[in-house]
């Protein structure tokens, strides 16, 4: 999509447009966001992925008017964020990582006052508050204060609050970070449902599984830059070879250096793009068993390698424990792109 005057001819301008965005905080030597551009179409679920400090939260801050960009521009529904923050605030909603619910108000009031802040008439906001509370399973505790709410309930209430003023774009900052599995599934369902109603959603996460299940498109960020921006399926094709065969084997009792032997045997199989030896997280705790070796064999068609791989393991004097074909996960794409070191 373009930001030229041809935009007028475009019937569907992007819901979110970011152009050459740079943010450098005072006293910082590096740019927190370093020349980022992307578009999110209306009705899309867009994921921003990246390690801590990659710049995701800064981008959300700029788009939600709480951070002023150093350079570049950002717009929501064709309204410039820096030039007209009031109109932008009326069109967006934010669900933050940590609860920022107004603890002086009762649950229902949190919603009705939010509606009032955004100019909803009394009857409208009261009706919508009640139906949202019922819909999110909070209807019976609507006259309590939030102090006694669990993390999951607070999260649901923040979502209800976000939906009160009928935003066009919803920002979810690591929405399932501290949730139990039930709340997480419930939230995923809600996100899909809200999206089906036409809401454009931008979410940040480091949960690859979550991004994979929810997002239509994902941008992987690191050091303030977007490394790739594509559909989950397309991102997975970035992995060399395309598919993965996981091989676990028992080394012979005196098999010092057996790992390397097996690895080179596996690498020698025709069609293998790359073999990675993985630390097996189970072996140190499994008492009485020999330490297991674990490998990832990358290839275009890993399923055809099961036989040759088993033979290769046996030929190098080890025993096959387990063989399985895996589609590469986003996690592998992520590690592949951003490296393994800790932040």
């Amino acid at each position, binding site marked *: 999509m373009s930001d030229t005057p041809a935009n007028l001819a475009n019937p569907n301008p992007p819901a979110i447009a970011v152009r050459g965005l740079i943010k450098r905080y005072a006293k910082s030597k590096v740019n927190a966001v370093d020349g980022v551009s992307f578009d999110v179409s209306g009705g899309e679920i867009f994921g921003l992925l990246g390690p801590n400090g990659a710049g995701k939260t800064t981008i959300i801050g700029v788009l939600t008017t709480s951070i002023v960009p150093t350079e570049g521009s950002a717009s929501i529904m064709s309204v410039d964020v820096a030039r007209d923050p009031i109109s932008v*605030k009326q069109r967006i909603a934010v669900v933050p990582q940590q609860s920022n619910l*107004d603890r*002086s108000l009762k649950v229902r009031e949190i919603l009705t006052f939010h509606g*009032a*802040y955004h100019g909803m008439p009394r009857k409208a906001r009261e009706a919508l508050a009640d*139906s949202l509370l019922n819909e999110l399973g909070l209807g019976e505790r609507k006259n309590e204060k939030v102090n006694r709410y669990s993390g999951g309930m607070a999260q649901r209430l923040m979502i209800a609050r976000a939906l009160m003023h009928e935003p066009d774009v919803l920002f979810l900052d690591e929405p399932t970070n501290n949730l139990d599995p039930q709340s997480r599934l419930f939230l995923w369902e809600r996100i899909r449902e809200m999206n089906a109603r036409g809401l454009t959603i931008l979410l940040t996460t480091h949960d690859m599984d979550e991004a994979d299940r929810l997002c239509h498109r994902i941008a992987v960020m690191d050091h303030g830059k977007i490394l790739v921006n594509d559909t989950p399926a397309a991102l997975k094709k970035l992995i060399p070879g395309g598919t993965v065969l996981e091989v676990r084997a028992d080394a012979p009792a005196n098999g010092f250096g057996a790992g390397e032997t097996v690895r080179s045997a596996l690498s020698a199989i025709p069609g293998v793009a790359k073999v990675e030896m993985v630390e097996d997280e189970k072996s140190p705790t499994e008492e009485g068993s020999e330490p297991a070796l674990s490998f990832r064999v990358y290839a275009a068609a890993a399923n055809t390698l099961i036989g040759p791989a088993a033979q290769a393991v046996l030929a190098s004097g080890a025993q096959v424990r387990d063989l399985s074909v895996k589609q590469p996960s986003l996690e592998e794409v992520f590690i592949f792109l951003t490296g393994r070191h800790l932040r």
Partner: protein
Amino acid sequence: MNGINATKMTLDRTFTERRESRTFLAFNAFFAILRRDIRVTGREFLPFLLQALMQPLFFLFIFGKVLPGIGLAAGNFAALMLPGIVALTGMIASMQGVTLPLVLDLGFAREIDDRLLSPLPVWWVALEKVIFGAMRGVIASSVIFPLGWLILGSGFAVRGDRIPLLIGMVLLTGCVGSTIGLLMGTVIKPDQISLMFTLIFTPLLFTGCTYYPWAALRNIRWFQVLTLLNPLTYASEGLRYSMVPPIGGQNFPTLGIGWTLVMLTVSVVAMFVLGTRTFLHRVVN
């Protein structure tokens, strides 16, 4: 889900039209936020009054009733001190209404985020805090009058010919307190709260000419000059000017009222500008 969608559809039309006017949105949000503060304080009105009035109640009793009663203070001391108590109560109530919630909100609770994301200029959120704080101050100050009348009995004396000025002074005192509260609330970090309250409140309390008239300090000149740095001095003296009845046909000597009003206005404007600047600095990066 369909039911909700239907409700929304019917609401949407008027709602979308309203989106167009930013001025309407901003004013509307401002008053909604003010209503929120009134609702929250209204729910805890009794605790609020007790908190604001406990100290003045005992001050009035000890300094206005007990000390003159045992001959340690002159009979008209109550009349001189009453304006100081009105000023002090208003200042503290308005400051507390702004400072404490702001320190917590900006520090970690971030409960204010929902208001910052409302469709109004961010600095209006600070303005609302100041106006609401001033309202608290005015209420607390006003309750001192019936309270003083009850406790001081015959010692209660307020001149009746400067009532409009008195009302103006009470309003101005509330604004002085809430703007100082804004600055303090945006500067203090949560872990410094108790230290800062002691370091700022105590000197403010005792150098503000609340328990003694300014003119009486002429024998301790350096202290008299020092008190001029405290906005509370002008609030106390301005209230003294509008409240203390003439003694033997002579008006009680106070700081000049013109000078007093100018200094109070300067304090309100300066503290508001500084406070809003730090506020913006804390909430918009």
